[in-house]
């Protein structure tokens, strides 16, 4: 009996100690697991808001936590709880979708740009235009591409007067260049070629072949096998995945095929990392001349022990081209207080906050603000941070959802077929003739 009493005391003591712990959410008496409710808090009443965004690395997660604490102190009548979203057992997308299904999603959360249509059309996120107008927000403070998607009207599928959120950050592709290998190969320096306006596909191919000629495991170029890298080649050739109004497949256009042909030709030789292999490890091992990736790869590349820098993508037949990658903070349709949730979205996209995040080097501010850009440019190496900003200026294709179809379904169908073409398993003429029929299911066909 004595043992039972001791055990009971111990259990109760632990439960009570849990109450007395210094956990923020416990102290303020808020239930952080509760779903956002549909009641609006009275003016001046303290509101607890939860927000979630996917950090690129643990350092970013820590900075987001600090930002949350700062905003919690500065925002009027708002107590914030930040959740990184992913953990060892589940990725960000899994966590978010599970929370949304269970009705326990945070008040404000980040989603990839390609998911905006799916969330908006299912009434999962709020149209914030009413609150934005009241707060004096201007769409023009952010890059035009993402705002085009974020203002898309559900009925027309074209930019309108809606406002589904604000972009957290943006990114573009660059070519990470191993300057030591370039010098050893004796080929022209891509940064100089770019400065002289001579950085086109032909010059790129010469550099690739020149570096690969060093022999052994040395390769001239590498890219990963997902839609971004190969899409950039189509963009540079003047093509793209979709028609101009994004209502149908555009993979069979002559321009898209020209870009894909150039890529296939590049991969037909031994000068590049085989398509489908992750090119980052060999690049970091110092055996690859140029590695195409986004700004998010920069913190990892900084650990290499050779001289490197970044150059923009070579000009294609249609001139310079790139992607504009982005993701957005959106407001849960079930939030307790949309007005305060909007205030949080605005605060999270302020220039000073974006400067803190971009100072870590993984992404570019989405706000067209000199303060934020200055912070981004201070992150060195690379010396040529400007290469990523040039990508923003040179008419990039904006990553975005399909308002008249299913982006995930389209990508699943497209990825494997593009891979087949690039690796020579599928004839490109056959691809051009049939790919838009094969992917028509993504448009409800």
């Amino acid at each position: 009996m004595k043992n039972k009493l001791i055990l009971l005391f111990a259990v109760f003591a632990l439960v009570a100690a849990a109450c007395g712990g210094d956990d923020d959410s416990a102290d303020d008496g808020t239930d952080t697991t509760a779903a956002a409710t549909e009641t609006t808090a009275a003016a001046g009443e303290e509101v607890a808001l939860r927000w979630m965004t996917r950090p690129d690395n643990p350092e970013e997660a820590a900075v987001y936590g600090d930002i949350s604490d700062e905003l919690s102190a500065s925002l009027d009548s708002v107590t914030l709880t930040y959740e990184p979203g992913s953990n060892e057992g589940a990725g960000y997308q899994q966590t978010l979708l599970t929370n949304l299904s269970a009705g326990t999603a945070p008040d404000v959360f980040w989603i990839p740009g390609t998911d905006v249509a799916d969330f908006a059309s299912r009434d999962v996120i709020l149209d914030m235009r009413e609150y934005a107008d009241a707060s004096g927000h201007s769409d023009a403070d952010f890059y035009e591409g993402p705002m085009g998607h974020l203002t898309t009207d559900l009925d027309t599928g074209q930019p309108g007067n809606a406002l589904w959120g604000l972009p957290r950050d943006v990114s573009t592709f660059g070519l990470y260049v191993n300057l030591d290998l370039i010098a050893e190969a004796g080929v022209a320096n891509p940064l100089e070629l770019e400065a002289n306006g001579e950085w086109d596909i032909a010059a790129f191919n010469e550099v690739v072949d020149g570096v690969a000629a060093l022999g052994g495991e040395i390769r001239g170029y590498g890219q990963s096998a997902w839609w971004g890298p190969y899409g950039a080649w189509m963009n540079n050739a003047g093509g793209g995945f979709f028609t101009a109004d994004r209502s149908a497949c555009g993979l069979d256009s002559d321009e898209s095929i020209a870009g894909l042909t150039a890529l296939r030709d590049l991969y037909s030789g031994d000068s590049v990392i085989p398509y489908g292999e992750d090119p980052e490890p060999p690049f970091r091992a110092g055996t690859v001349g140029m590695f195409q990736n986004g700004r998010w790869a920069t913190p990892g590349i900084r650990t290499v022990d050779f001289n490197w820098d970044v150059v923009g993508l070579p000009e294609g037949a249609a001139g310079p081209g790139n992607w504009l990658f982005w993701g957005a903070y959106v407001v849960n349709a079930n939030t307790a207080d949309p007005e305060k949730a909007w205030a949080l979205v605005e605060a999270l996209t302020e220039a000073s906050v974006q400067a803190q995040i971009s100072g870590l080097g993984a992404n570019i501010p989405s706000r067209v603000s000199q303060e934020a850009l200055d912070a981004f440019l201070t992150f060195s190496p690379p010396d040529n941070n400007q290469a990523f900003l040039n990508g923003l200026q040179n008419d990039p294709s904006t990553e975005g959802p399909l308002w008249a179809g299913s982006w995930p379904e389209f990508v699943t169908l497209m990825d494997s077929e593009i891979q087949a073409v690039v690796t020579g398993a599928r004839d490109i003429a056959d691809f051009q003739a049939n790919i838009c029929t094969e992917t028509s299911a993504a448009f409800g066909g």
Partner: protein
Amino acid sequence: MTAASAKPMSTSSGEPRWFRPLLVWRVFAAVLLTFALIAVALQRGIVLDGPVRWSLLVALLGAVVGAGIAIRGTLQKVHLGRFAGFTIDLLLMVVLGFIALNRMGMFTGVDAVGEAFNGNAAWLAIVILGWFVSGFADKAGGNQKILKQVAQWTMITGMVVLTVAMGLIPGLIEFATRIVEGDVILFAAGAVIAGVFARILWSDTAARLFKTTQTEGENMDGMLFVAPNVLGFLAFFAGPLIVSLFISFTEWDGLTDANFVGFQNYIDLFTDALFLKALRNIVIFGVVAIPLAVIPALLLAALLNSKLPGMRFFRAVYFLPSIAGVVGVTLIWKQLFNSTVGYLNYMILRVTEWFNSLIGTGWEAPQPQWISDDSIALIAVIILFVWQQIGFNTVLFLAGMQSIDGTLYEAADIDGAGPWRKLRNITVPMLRPTTVFVVATSTILALQLFNEPFILQAPSPPSGPGNATLTPVVYLYQNAFQEFQIGYASAVAWALFILIFGITLLYFRRSGDEGVLTS
């Protein structure tokens, strides 16, 4: 424990004092559950959507029926009334208690307990030390009473200081504050009342009143003992399983209302080229990987079972891959498989060069693209799986071998049998139950393959080149979390479950027929 006799117990002359309150509580609980059922059905007060709502409806319907049976049985004073009432009260106590604790934010406070433990580790160490010394005093025997008492008081003092240092006093104040907040007190009170009546119904007096036989009483005790496990099983395994079965009959994106589509998802599976490709991949994977993970493990176990020096070290070495984190291990293998800077191809290159120099040939070293070539991408996954699995299987075989009666080998030695003969005629037959278990677990793990292709192929899609590494679970993941087709993904999950269940059943039935599992 109930101390019921073998025959039905006779009722006491009068009803116990708690009988009328119990009847009132029975009716009140039934009314409460009925209201909850109506609220969920009509979406009034409790607004839930999709499968969660349907699951709750089914659970509440069951509870209302159970509550009805409990009322009837209580009025008739038969064991069914006691059993149904006890079950309902037990469930109510757990569910209402859980809701109350959750609304108090208690589960988020678990982190705080962890932090508080970290900060007061010294006091915790004193508690553990006291426990050890107390145990030692027990074992030592003799006149160790004083030592035991000192140890016990040290333990109790340590516990008190620990809990106070962890925040017991502010915790108690906070606990008292939160429990009276809003509706928490109602849930907590409900849980306490249900708990009290459950305790009453478990008593000997209740057993006599409800004419419980000894067997029925023992059954009830047994059920109470397994209740925590059963509740956990229902909440975290069977519940989600049933929900996923329901979802598999719907078209549901996880975000909006589900549409019931009957067997359409299952019908679609038969014509879904990607699903069929995933099935084909996993069958090939299983046919190649399982023998490779089992047969070498058996031979390795035979080797490690010998009394050669250093065997303990090697046992640990071979077991290491199975305790290493799959993500870390796969990332290492991803580097090894890299076709340009990976050590695997480097090794092939050096071996070929050495061979060429040895016999004067000029063979070119093959440099397979382990991950990006669709003809061998699955082989890379097989190598990784087998490497991870062999060690675990070896340990299982080793345990099986060490339980084989040594006299069999001694008799074989007398008959002049060699090591191979002993392995073939004694070890392998005697290991059949272990082999069945090893093969069954390896098969289940193989069919559930997900992490390895997912990480090996990143940042490319996990389905790999030409969908060479697309497995049913990868396909399930893509449908559920990338394409928002939760209903279809659930159908994939159930198709996979049926496949795994069927194969496992086949293994065990065949083994059962041969008497392997009972030998």
